[in-house]
């Protein structure tokens, strides 16, 4: 009897202590955001700013489902195993209702596999790997940003319009690089069967030996070059290639090369006349796109990168899904994401029900120098929907349920 009363007293105490906690937990809707904040600080920073801006706007307008929205940001050090552990912690201990985040494809794939197994909704915001929604796709994973395949297809379309016949490629020696080259080849050969690939260079990612790569490309005498290198590799490649005259009289197509993240560090040495995918935030005509740039600049005293835009759109997509679901139950959120329309700074996008890929597109244009900085001109926004395989094709790519 005595024991019993102690237990009762204890459980009463526990109840009292946990009551305010429970109330607090009810107050916000929490989203778990996992990223490589340290390992990829230059990318994750603007992305996080985009999220916070959108979150502030949402909460100023009364939140979502009558509650404020809250993001819990966690650093995974760029390790897939660590990210999976954090995902579990967020969903079981922190009480988040869904997961989002990551830039690196391998971390995104790890979370996606975990989310599919445990039945958690995961919105992959930035990872680009095609397999995320196709060969390794699952019912619980959705992806926002235009994938490798889509962006490569946009460049292939531009390349097919020229009279270049002999192509050379240079891409980092890992999955993203290989996917990007394969997608470019496939799309180009479809539009221009007579195209020929005379050299394929595969420098180790962030380990480029630029002088040697340029010599090897020059030796193949291509009409056009397709570049997938980025970051410090791109800087070295552009410098050596420029010095040694590799780009003279040749068309160059650069995947992502026009994104501020990659173009800006090159400063006055940014390449001119390359056809690239990117984000020309400085020249957007008035409308939702330019409005986003203005608000972002006044909030952060900095200009937006592509990551900022993706972060902002991530919140918009999640809010749209929650509103459509009308609840925070996983199954409701999951089905709300299918065919979900979202109104964003780049226009209306839809998360396709067939492969869970959004139709967010990309800006394609050519590079030039303006005030000692590389910018994109003559650009055009390409709708992602036009570069995605049909629902039937996609069904074949995805694993059967």
């Amino acid at each position, binding site marked *: 009897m005595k024991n019993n009363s102690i237990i009762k007293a204890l459980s009463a105490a526990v109840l009292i202590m946990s009551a305010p906690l429970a109330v607090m937990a009810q107050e916000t809707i929490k989203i778990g955001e996992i990223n490589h904040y*340290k390992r990829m*600080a*230059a990318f994750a*920073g603007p992305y996080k700013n985009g999220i916070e801006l959108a979150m502030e706007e949402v909460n100023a307008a009364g939140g979502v489902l009558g509650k404020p929205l809250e993001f819990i940001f*966690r*650093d995974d*050090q760029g390790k*897939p*195993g660590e990210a*999976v*552990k954090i995902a*579990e*912690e967020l969903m*079981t*201990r922190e009480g988040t209702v869904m997961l989002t985040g990551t830039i690196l*494809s*391998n971390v995104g*794939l*790890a979370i996606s*596999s*975990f989310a*599919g*197994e445990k039945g958690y909704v995961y919105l992959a915001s930035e990872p680009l*790997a095609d*397999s995320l929604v196709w060969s*390794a796709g699952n019912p619980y994973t959705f992806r926002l940003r235009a994938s490798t395949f889509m962006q490569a297809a946009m460049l292939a379309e531009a390349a097919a319009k020229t009279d270049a016949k002999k192509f050379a490629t240079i891409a980092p*020696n*890992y*999955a993203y690089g*290989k996917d990007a080259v394969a997608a470019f080849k496939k799309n180009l050969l479809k539009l221009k069967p007579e195209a020929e690939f005379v*050299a*394929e*260079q*595969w*420098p*180790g990612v*962030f*380990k480029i*030996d*630029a*002088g*040697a*790569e340029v*010599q*090897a490309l020059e*030796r193949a005498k291509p009409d056009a070059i397709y570049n997938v290198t980025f*970051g*410090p590799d791109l*800087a*070295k490649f552009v*410098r*050596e290639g420029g*010095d*040694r*005259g590799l780009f003279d009289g040749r068309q160059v197509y650069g995947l992502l090369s026009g994104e501020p993240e990659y173009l*800006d*560090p*090159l*400063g006055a*040495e940014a390449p001119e006349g390359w056809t690239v995918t990117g984000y020309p935030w400085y020249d957007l005509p008035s409308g939702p796109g330019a409005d986003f740039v203005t608000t972002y600049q006044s909030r952060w005293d900095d200009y937006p990168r592509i990551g900022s835009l993706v972060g902002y759109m991530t919140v918009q997509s999640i809010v749209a899904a929650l509103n459509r679901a009308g609840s925070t139950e996983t199954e409701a959120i999951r089905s709300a994401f299918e065919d979900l329309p979202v109104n964003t700074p780049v226009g209306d996008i839809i998360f396709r029900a067939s492969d869970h890929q959004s139709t967010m597109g990309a800006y394609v244009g050519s590079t030039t120098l303006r005030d000692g900085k590389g910018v994109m001109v003559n650009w055009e926004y390409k709708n992602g929907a036009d570069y995605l395989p049909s629902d039937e094709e996609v069904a074949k790519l995805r694993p059967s349920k």
Partner: protein
Amino acid sequence: MELFVAQIITGLANASSLFLVACGLSLIFGVTRIVNFAHGSLYMLGAYLGYTFMQVLPGALGFWSSILLAGVSVGVIGILVEMLVLRPVYKAPELFQLVATFGVILVIQDIALIVFGPEDLLGPRAPGLRGVFRVMGEPVPKYDIILLVITPIVALALWYLITQTRVGVLVRAATQDREMVSALGVNQAWLFTGVFGLGSALAGLGGALQLPKGGADLLMDFHILAPVFVVVVIGGMGSLPGAYLAAVIISVLNVFAVTYLPQSTLVLMFVVMIVVLTIRPYGLFGREEVAGEHGQVGEPERPIKPASPRVQLLTSVFILLLAMMPIYSASFSLVFTTDVLIFCLFAASLHFLLGLGGLVSFGHAAYYGGGAYVAALLVTHANTPMELAFLLAPLGAGIAALVIGWVCLRLTGVYFAMLTLAFAQLLWSLVFQWGEVTGGDDGIVNIWPSEWLKPTIVYYYLTLLFCVGGILLLRHIAHSPFGYALRAARDSKRQAESTGIDTRKIQLLAFGFAGFMGGLAGALFVFSKGSVFPNELEIARSFDALIVVFLGGVKTLAGGVAGGVFFKGIEDILLKFEYWRLVMGLLIIFVVVLAPEGIVGSLRKGAERLNLIKSKDM
């Protein structure tokens, strides 16, 4: 022919930075015996500082003095690091200092982020040296020619310093026999400090000199590390001409590989290293390490004894608490504990090699990741049932360890460590490159346990069973005749052999067994996460285990496990803070300086001093 000449020039120019960084590392190792993992960080600082000076100092004069200034500043930083971090731990067990240098890496990473910001910096051009010369009609950047000239000048200056001056005589003497040098009245401490400063300055110089060909970014510290170690090892540790020759060989071969075998960029240098070390076990110009000391540096190892009843009781209570965990804690705590247990088994398997065998493996991730990949590949490509794949994974890892061990055991000490690293890297590049089978860096996903093992609690008990069982087995073997023979081989190979122990066979078996246990940890890992990526085979993963073993205490049986728990626990807390790397780095340095015998070793000593336990207790 024209292209050939141009390619040679490109290779020679590329060799320049590599040589400067590598010769600094080689010099430091030769004299102080410190494997300085922070050397890449010093190189990175050189690049950032050089960039900063160039923004302030104008013109050609400013450019070149910035490079010199960067070298000098990094030299000063090196001196500070040596005096504050390394000097207190020279008496610690061999290679313990590398843990301290790892702490330095973490600290420098966060400081660089705070001071220089996250964005990549494009290196300024050398004034007046933009554009190309034509060599036989082929374009060769002007700056390449400058690099081509500078490197031999620096190399000659170093050669003069080492062979023709009194300082050089002392340095060479210290490379041969440091105790004799100090017995002759040379202040060894300052000699070490000076050499460390010089080596750091060379790394800084290398970082600043490459600016016009690249720039400064936060990842360059780790990216230079592998090539630099390869160069130092191929050349022979401590040998300057060796470092130069090796830098040239690697760089020139790389240029040709890029042209004629573009896919080979990841593996090339490790293949070269394995080939060279197989033919010349101590590198091109290295000499066999003189077995100056009998056994290991530092305090002699204590004989190990079975645990006392008190310790046995404590351990049983601890295991019981773990077994009852599902009753009193939340589901996530189980997931977290599963992670910690797996990591502890991994660390304990390395500790078995390192502590009992005296075999320092820098590539233990090969067996951890190897085990994980064996399981994942079996499930994906052969539809193997999960239970069978789980049991075959450690076997696969064990066999891999036997093969790698068979090759590596021809060498000893640091060369052995480096060769294990090379094999781990080879395995990593194989997995990374062979995308059709391994998925490359997109890994293998959807590797989940069988239905009955899926619930968190059941998997927790599976992990608990195998990890605690594995750790107890490792401990048990330490007390078996095999364990005695292994320690005999470690302490004195000659005496062990004269008593009839086949030391090579014993060490090979130990290597295979440690690989087997590492593979078991890997198998537990892959089924708990559901996916595996090449990250699990990376150098960084090997280092994780290495640091944990040293932090826990090499010379104590419980070192690996204690270090694992400590490290994972701290990491879990720190990761929630923005500058966790800085704090973690400082903490590691702090532990290293304060507890040079590792956590368990130092606790034991402290307890003995306070008469809390008698020395025979542990």
